[in-house]
């Protein structure tokens, strides 16, 4: 086996040193009734070349771009990733170390994460960002738990236009300890109905996603005002951070915590994971933040460098009183996001965000002109909800055969929106492709 360097001679001589006759003798402390009665019943080893065929076959039975045209978002977005990013991210020095516990041999990862924290904080308009969490859903759950710790209250209000899967993850995190999540309904214009908050007291936090699940841009300033009125934290969630290249960022609208999914920033779709749990907050809450933090410092000669810091918040020191049980960050994904933001630059991210917006507006208008109704009138970014004519299912299936995925049917997530589809357009779609889609839908 090529991954195992020991020759028979090595094994024999090493066994002699440890005083064992056979490899099996090394396991003498294991009681008989814990031992495996027979060999593992799994397929025999494959050569690299056999494995190539197997993996090719598996991956070829998935509908993926560019062969398939996906007008599909809903928390996972199709964006171009520069070859330079993929190349850099594949460097062994980034891929094969562990958490930078020993700063003197890990300055590369540490500086890169410090830069990620800085760029993430700037993008979200927040004072500080952590080194990242697992994904947007757990980041939201952690944000709400943090608000509960800070305010010592046991109830949170969550917009029903936050990604349905995120709300389910929050539910999983809150339920066992009796914490309560109240859902805020949505208005006809596709934004969250904040008036419901007037009737709820003792809130730890209000959480809203913008752009929300329908692609509508929320009035974050109004949420900020409302949460100050209720004396609770304002948690601003997101699934499409690219939007903040163009839109007002959460920090400028009064968010106490901004958290969400960073997959759009240079990370492949990968069937939903890994992604990047982005998490940023006001500096005054820094000791309540979950997850790793990298800070700037100096070495004993006074030279600048970076270290993991404020570790006393974390599980390995504070154990059951830690701010979270999380051990790692999603380091390599955070690095991808930093590289992506660096590659775009301030000028590039604005242009790219604008292009995304304009392309989705183009499709929205084209569909409207073709007689389709746009369900919600609020301004949107990248995604919008469109009503289908009767018997659309057959058209949808026909388009699948033509390798076009015409959005996401909303019925499973919002039963009241039967027959409505969530469409998504990013920079990867050309005008011709959108025209083709409209043409096909018209037929």
């Amino acid at each position: 086996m090529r991954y195992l360097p020991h020759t028979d001679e090595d094994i024999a001589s090493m066994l002699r040193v440890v005083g064992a006759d056979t490899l099996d003798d090394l396991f003498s402390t294991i009681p008989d009734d814990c031992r495996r009665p027979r060999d593992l019943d799994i397929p025999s080893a494959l050569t690299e070349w056999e494995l190539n065929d197997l993996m090719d076959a598996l991956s070829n039975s998935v509908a993926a771009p560019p062969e398939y045209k996906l007008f599909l978002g809903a928390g996972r977005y199709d964006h171009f990733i520069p070859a330079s990013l993929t190349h850099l991210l594949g460097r062994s020095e980034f891929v094969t170390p562990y958490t930078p516990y020993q700063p003197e041999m890990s300055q590369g990862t540490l500086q890169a994460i410090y830069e990620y924290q800085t760029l993430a904080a700037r993008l979200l308009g927040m004072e500080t960002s952590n080194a990242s969490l697992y994904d947007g859903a757990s980041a939201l759950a952690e944000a709400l738990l943090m608000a509960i710790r800070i305010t010592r209250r046991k109830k949170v209000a969550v917009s029903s236009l936050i990604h349905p899967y995120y709300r389910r993850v929050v539910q999983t995190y809150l339920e066992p300890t009796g914490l309560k999540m109240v859902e805020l309904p949505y208005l006809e214009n596709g934004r969250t109905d904040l008036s419901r908050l007037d009737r709820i007291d003792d809130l730890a936090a209000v959480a809203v996603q913008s752009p929300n699940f329908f692609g509508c841009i929320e009035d974050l300033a109004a949420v900020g005002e409302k949460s100050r009125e209720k004396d609770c934290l304002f948690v601003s969630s997101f699934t499409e951070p690219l939007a903040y290249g163009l839109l007002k960022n959460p920090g400028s609208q009064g968010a106490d915590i901004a958290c969400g999914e960073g997959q759009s920033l240079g990370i492949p779709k990968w069937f939903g994971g890994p992604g990047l749990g982005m998490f940023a907050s006001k500096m005054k809450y820094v000791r309540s933040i979950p997850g790793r933090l990298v800070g700037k410092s100096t070495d004993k000669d006074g030279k600048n460098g970076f270290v993991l810091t404020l570790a006393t918040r974390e599980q390995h020191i504070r154990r059951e009183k830690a701010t979270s049980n999380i051990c790692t960050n999603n380091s390599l994904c955070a690095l991808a996001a930093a590289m992506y933001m660096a590659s775009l630059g301030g000028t590039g991210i604005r242009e790219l965000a604008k292009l995304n917006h304009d392309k989705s507006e183009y499709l929205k208008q084209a569909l409207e002109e073709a007689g389709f109704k746009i369900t919600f009138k609020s301004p949107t970014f990248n995604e919008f909800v469109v009503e289908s004519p009767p018997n659309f299912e057959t058209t949808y299936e026909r388009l699948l055969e033509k390798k076009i995925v015409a959005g996401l049917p909303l019925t499973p997530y919002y039963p009241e929106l039967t027959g409505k589809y969530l469409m998504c357009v990013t920079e990867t779609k050309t005008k011709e492709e959108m025209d083709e889609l409209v043409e096909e839908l018209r037929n």
Partner: protein
Amino acid sequence: MKEISELNLPEDLGYTEDHEWIRVEGHEAAVGLTDYAQDQLGDIVFVELPRPGDVLGKGEEFGTVESVKAVAELYMPVGGEVLAVNTTLEDSPGLVNTNPHTDGWIIRIKQSDPDQLDILMNRKTYLKMLEGVA
């Protein structure tokens, strides 16, 4: 780390098993962390302080001190009301290391029951306890 003989433990303080000291001045008292405890923890980077006005019982947690890689809870040597907290520690937590029994004091309290003072250790008994630990 310091040998027991290198510790600087004033005679006029009362000591607890959790390594707090108390200096009684009439009905009021100052409370802090002993030289031994600060030395064990290493460089203190953060002190979490209670709010003046908090009333806490003997043995109740009134705050925490943090070094880079450890957290220690602070317990009331006697019950009482927190009169003042040492706000200089917010910017200079290192005072707990450099002057543990003077400028590095943590809170001032008004004792609720002066009798509780009787069961605190004096320097000699505290040293004896430390020798047992070490």
